[in-house]
C-alpha cells in the first residue's frame, strides 16, 4: 500500500473529515426533526413528542397532533429539502455552473406552469375545494404535471446552453425563461375563477404543511424514484465535471447519462414544487455548503451530503417558521432566503476572486 496514489495521512484526514461531517449532520437532522415535532401552536415537550410518535404520549391529543399533522409536515420538509438539494447538485454539474439551481434556471417556474394548468384551467370542480379536495390520483397527476413543466424548461435551457458557453449568460436565460413561465401563469390566473386563483396564490407562498398523511406516500414515492435515478449516476456525473468530451473519451455515453439525470432532477424539483410550492434558494445553497464542508467534488460524497444539508436547511426553516407560536406561522420562503442568500453570495464573491473552488 506504500504505492497508494494518495499518501496515507491525507487519505485518513479526508475520510475522518467526511465521517465527522456526516455524523454531525445526522445528529443535527435528528434534533431538528424532533424540534419540528415539538414546536407549533401547541408546544409539546421534546421527550413527549418522540413518545407520541409511537402513540405513548401522556396526553392523547398530543399523539394525534404529532402523528397526523406534525410528522407528515416534518417528513415533507426533510424530504423536500433533500430532493431540491439533489436536483440543484445535478443542475450545477450538468451546466457546470455553481449558481445553477431549480429556481435560478426557471425550473420551479416551469413546474408552476404545470400546476397552474391543472389547478386553474383543468377540471370543473369549484375553486376552494380544489387543492384540498383533490384525490390521491389527482395529486399524482399534479406532481406529474409539475415534473413535465420542469422538464420542458430544462430542455429549453439545455438547448440554450449549447449556444452560450458563458455561465452567467445561462443564468440570464434561466431568468428570462422564468419570466416567460411567470407570464403564462399570470395569464392563467387572469382567466381563472377568483376562488381557484386564491388557492393557487396560496400555493405560491411555499409551505411544507399541505401534505397530509395520505398524500405523503405519493411525495415520498416520487422523490424516492428521483433519488434512485440520481444515486446510480455518481460515476457519469463525476466525469461530466471535466466536460462532455472528456466524459465521452473515458467511455461515458454522455447523452443517455445526461438525459437520465435531467429526468431525475425534473422529478425531484417538479414533485416538490407541486406539493410545497416554489421553494427558493435551497437547491443552490445546499450543494454549495456540501462542497465547502466536505471539501470534495466527488458525487458519491456530494449526493448524500447535499441531501442531508438540504434536509437540515428545510427543517431549520420549518422550525423557525413555527417560532412565533400562538397559532401564527411564518412563510418558509423568506426564512430559506435568509439562510441561502448569504451562502450563494459568498460563493459568487469567492468565485469572482478565484480563491477557493466553488
Amino acid at each position, binding site marked *: 500500500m506504500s504505492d497508494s496514489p494518495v499518501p496515507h495521512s491525507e487519505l485518513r484526514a479526508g475520510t475522518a473529515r467526511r465521517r465527522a461531517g456526516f455524523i454531525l449532520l445526522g445528529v443535527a437532522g435528528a434534533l431538528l426533526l424532533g424540534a419540528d415535532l415539538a414546536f407549533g401552536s401547541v408546544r409539546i415537550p421534546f421527550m413527549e413528542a418522540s413518545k407520541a410518535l409511537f402513540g405513548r404520549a401522556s396526553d392523547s391529543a398530543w399523539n394525534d397532533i404529532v402523528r397526523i399533522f406534525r410528522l407528515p409536515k416534518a417528513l415533507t420538509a426533510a424530504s423536500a429539502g433533500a430532493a431540491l438539494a439533489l436536483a440543484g447538485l445535478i443542475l450545477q454539474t450538468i451546466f457546470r455552473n455553481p449558481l445553477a439551481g431549480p429556481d435560478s434556471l426557471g425550473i420551479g417556474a416551469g413546474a408552476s406552469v404545470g400546476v397552474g394548468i391543472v389547478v386553474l384551467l383543468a377540471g370543473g370542480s369549484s375553486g376552494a375545494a380544489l387543492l384540498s379536495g383533490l384525490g390521491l390520483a389527482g395529486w399524482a397527476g399534479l406532481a406529474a404535471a409539475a415534473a413535465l413543466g420542469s422538464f420542458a424548461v430544462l430542455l429549453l435551457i439545455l438547448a440554450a446552453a449549447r449556444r452560450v458557453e458563458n455561465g452567467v449568460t445561462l443564468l440570464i436565460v434561466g431568468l428570462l425563461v422564468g419570466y416567460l413561465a411567470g407570464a403564462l401563469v399570470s395569464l392563467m390566473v387572469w382567466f381563472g375563477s377568483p376562488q381557484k386563483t386564491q388557492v393557487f396564490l396560496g400555493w405560491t407562498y411555499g409551505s411544507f404543511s399541505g401534505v397530509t398523511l395520505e398524500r405523503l406516500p405519493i411525495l415520498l414515492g416520487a422523490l424516492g424514484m428521483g433519488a434512485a435515478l440520481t444515486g446510480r449516476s*455518481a460515476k457519469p456525473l463525476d466525469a461530466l465535471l471535466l466536460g462532455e468530451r472528456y466524459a465521452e473519451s473515458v467511455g461515458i455515453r454522455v447523452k443517455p447519462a445526461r438525459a437520465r439525470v435531467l429526468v431525475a432532477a425534473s422529478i425531484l424539483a417538479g414533485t416538490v414544487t407541486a406539493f410545497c410550492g416554489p421553494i427558493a434558494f435551497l437547491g443552490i445553497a445546499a450543494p454549495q455548503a456540501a462542497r465547502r464542508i466536505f471539501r470534495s467534488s466527488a458525487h458519491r460524497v456530494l449526493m448524500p451530503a447535499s441531501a442531508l444539508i438540504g434536509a437540515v436547511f428545510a427543517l431549520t426553516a420549518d422550525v423557525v417558521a413555527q417560532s412565533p407560536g400562538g397559532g401564527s406561522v411564518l412563510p418558509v420562503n423568506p426564512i430559506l432566503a435568509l439562510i441561502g442568500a448569504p451562502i450563494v453570495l459568498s460563493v459568487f464573491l469567492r468565485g469572482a476572486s478565484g480563491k477557493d473552488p466553488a
Partner: protein
Amino acid sequence: MKSSEALSPPAATAVLEACGLSAGWRQGKSATRLLRNITLTLPPGRFVALVGPNGAGKSTLLRTLVGMQSPLAGTVRLRGLPIKSLTVEDRARLAACVFTDRFDSGWFTVSDIVSFGRYPYTDARNRLTESDREIVSEAIRETGLSGFESRRFAELSDGEKQKALTARAVAQDAPLLVLDEPTAFLDAPARIEVFHLAARLARTRGKAVIVSTHDVDLALRHAEELWILDREHRFSSGAPETMALSGALGRAFDGPVVRFDPASGAFRALSESVPFAVGISGDDPVALGWTFRLAERLGCVIEPEDGHYDASIKVSRTGHAISWELEAAGKVTRAASFETLAELLGRLIDSARKRPDPT
C-alpha cells in the same frame, strides 16, 4: 483497402488505420466535406506530430480518428477493429485523449484527475481496485508528478496540469494516445517537456502517440513522423526531414510574409529590402553559430551562391571573449561584443540600402 489485408486476420501490427477517409460535418442532410480520401497507418511505438495551419482540419481529423465524430466516407480501424462497431467503452480502452478543454476541477486532486483514466475499467460504483491504484501511481510517476498526488489540480501550473492530464490518459492504458495541441498554453521549457514525454511514452511503453501542434520546430526535432494538413486540407506524411526537404511543409504553411526555410528548418519572415550579403568565417562553432543568427536577424543573406559579399565577418574566440573583424569595401572595423557588432553591421546595411541597386 488492399484485398490481401481484408482476408488476413486484423493486422496486429497497426494501432490505427484509416482508409479512404473523408471527414467533416453533417448538418441535417447536407454534409460539409473538409478532408478527403485520407489513408494512413500508425504502428505501435510510433510518435507522430500532426501539423498544419489553423483551419486545415487537424481537430476534425483527430476527432474522426478516435471515433468522436463519424467519418463521411471511408473506414477507421483501431487495433484492426472497425471503429463503427466499437462501443464508447471499447473506444475508451483503445484510444486515450488529452484535449485543450478547460474545466473547473473543484476539489479534485492530481490523483483524482489521473484516476479518471480508470473509468473504462471500473464498475458502476467506480471503485478502484488495488491494481487500478497501482496503474494510477505508475502513470503519475511516469509523467514526473510524484509528490503531487494530493495537490489540488486547480493549484497546478499550466505545465503541471498538462502533465497530470497526460498521466490521466496514460492511466487509461490504451494503445493509442492522442494529444490535441498540448503545448498551447505552455512556456518554452514546458513545451519541450511535453514532446519529450510523448516520445518517451512511445519508446518505453510502445504506445502510438499523435500530437497535434503549432510548434513545427519542436515537431521536426522530436517526432518520428510528420503528418501535414495544408490549407487545401490535403494530407501528406513522412519523416520530418523528408517533409522539410520535399517542400511539403513549405506548401502547407508558406504565406506572403513567412516562408519555411529548409536549410535552417525554421520559418522566416521574408526581408523586403535590398539583400545584404555577408560571408562569415571562424573556428569556434558556438561563436560562429550565434554570429550567423545575428546576421540573419538583421536581414542579411549569408553565403550567397554567387560568392559576392557586401561584407565579411571573421570570428575569433579566446576563452569567453569573442571578437569580430568586420570588413566592407576594404575598410576593417572591430567589435568585442554582439551589441557592437550588431550596431556596426546595422550601419553598413542601412547605407547599402540607401544606395540605388547597381543592377
